């Protein structure tokens, strides 16, 4: 069954068009990633799919229920983890959880047993009676996730679940997502973290300026841009002028300095490896290491969103 179906969705605010007619479907049980830079329209999409914000045109349905005409029925199937950890600072973790359960009409026994196991799962049980005001960012995030799961949803929306968290909170959250996936829960997550999309999602949609640039599995997306394979080389004691020499090599499209290493972008890594060795011999420098890389999801992302940050030597998107 199709969990989420979106057809030609447009969202206009007074001055800007945040979504310019996007269409996609997410199958039940899938972990679907929405990957895009700041302002791409990720949160806007989630707000429409959860019935908070009405679309300007187009339609969307959740498990076959239209989000505009059957909003309440559609919402009963979903859990939402909003972009900001919107917990009530003045209530305890437990009261926060119970309040969300009440909004979703989860029965008393069920909410108490599930509430306890969720707080244990997210490592918050010891603090369940403490006011949330004193919680760290990661703890609030984990509580937000627990609140999003209290109604045992079939579809979970996560708006940047791990953004800005430490390794431990990050790991717990990823583990939970994986676990949900094995239980058949559909997960729709937005992120601007390419690695997160790469490791957690079955399929990824790359969104930019309110348009979907590509949708596919991370591996297949990488295949579409074979031309950006690369060779990374480190020299023992190279003069900066070596960069010029590398740039002159045949079949090298581009040379980027990355820390103490050089990355050479090419379509034919074997040829380039040969040429680099020759160049090194000529310049009398020693090669310490050399690796070849296939295209990364980041390369796909940069290619499709036309982000030109390479020239400044910046590689990460965030």
């Amino acid at each position, binding site marked *: 069954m199709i969990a989420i179906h979106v057809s030609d969705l447009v969202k206009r605010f007074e001055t800007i068009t945040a979504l310019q007619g996007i269409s996609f479907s997410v199958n039940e049980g899938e972990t679907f990633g929405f990957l895009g830079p700041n302002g791409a329209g990720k949160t806007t999409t989630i707000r429409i799919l*959860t019935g*908070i914000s009405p679309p300007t045109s187009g339609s969307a349905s959740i498990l076959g229920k239209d989000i505009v005409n059957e909003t309440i029925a559609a*919402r009963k199937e979903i859990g939402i983890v909003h972009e900001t950890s919107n917990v*009530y600072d003045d*209530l305890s973790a437990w009261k926060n959880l119970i*309040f969300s359960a*009440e*909004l*979703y009409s989860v029965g008393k026994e069920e909410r108490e047993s599930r509430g306890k196991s969720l707080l244990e799962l997210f490592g918050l049980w010891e603090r369940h009676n403490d006011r949330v005001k004193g919680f760290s960012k990661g703890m609030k995030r984990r509580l937000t996730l627990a609140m999003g799961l209290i109604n045992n949803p079939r579809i979970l929306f996560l708006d940047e679940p791990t953004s800005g968290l430490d390794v431990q909170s990050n790991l717990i959250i990823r583990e939970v997502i994986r676990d949900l996936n094995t239980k058949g829960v559909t997960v729709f997550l937005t992120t601007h973290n390419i690695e997160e999309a790469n490791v957690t999602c079955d399929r990824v949609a790359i969104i930019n300026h309110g348009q979907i640039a590509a949708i596919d599995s991370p591996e297949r997306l990488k295949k579409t841009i074979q031309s950006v394979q690369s060779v990374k080389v480190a020299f023992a004691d190279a003069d900066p002028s070596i960069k010029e020499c590398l740039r002159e090599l045949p079949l090298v499209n581009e040379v980027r300095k990355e820390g103490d290493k050089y990355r050479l972008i090419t379509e034919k890594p074997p040829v380039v490896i040969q040429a680099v060795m020759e160049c090194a011999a000529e310049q009398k420098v020693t090669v310490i290491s050399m690796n070849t890389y296939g295209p990364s999801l980041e390369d796909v992302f940069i290619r499709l969103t036309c982000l030109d940050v390479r020239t400044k030597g910046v590689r990460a998107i965030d």
Partner: protein
Amino acid sequence: MSQVLYELRASWAIAKKDAAIYYLKPNILVSGALFPLFMFLAFSVGRPAEPALMIPGLVAITILFSSSTIEPVSIPIERRMKTFDRLLSAPISLHAIVLGESLSGFLYSIGIASVPCIAGFVLFGTGLSNGIPFLIGVVLTAFCFATMGTLFAAYPTESPGDIMSMLNLVRLPLIFISGIFIPIASIPYPGQLLVYCSPLTYGTDLIRAGFSGPTLFHPAVDLVMLLLFIGVFQVLANRLYKRFNE
């Protein structure tokens, strides 16, 4: 049917949540509890004993200020903290949200208004001759102005001050055109028309019927008018929340 029950329970949960978080917040205590109580004292102490005339009006004013203060403060704060999105994305209708918010102002106001009432009854005896119109008057007035507070809070701002200043522009004049301090007969003609447009007039009148004071209308008229105002405010609030939902 089950959905109605489902939504009523959610409304109740929203009201309980507001009570736990906002009822004792300092700014709410000042403008929703202390201000109306001091006003009550200021106007009731040292006046010639005419409880049937003054007390109903003062009770109504206490209710007006206490019931309409919670939502104009809590809703902008919840917009800023994004917790309002929780309500907006829950599997309940806007009606349930508006009802829950109004309920929280209502309960607060009943609590606050009972302070001078109980104190007055204990210290000076009741003067109350007919409990039914008094109780209905108190309940409906409180619910009416709680809904009005919720209605004003629909204005999409994240700062309580914005809503409070708009609200006071309405609340303060209401006191003067509801026959509490200024007898309606002494208000010049066009002003008298305004008197009939104020829910406070009907609330005060119904409460006054409980004290067997001189009333303007039959209690049934007051009752119908208050219900009408509640209905209109509820519908308008729903419209506005929907409209401002981007």
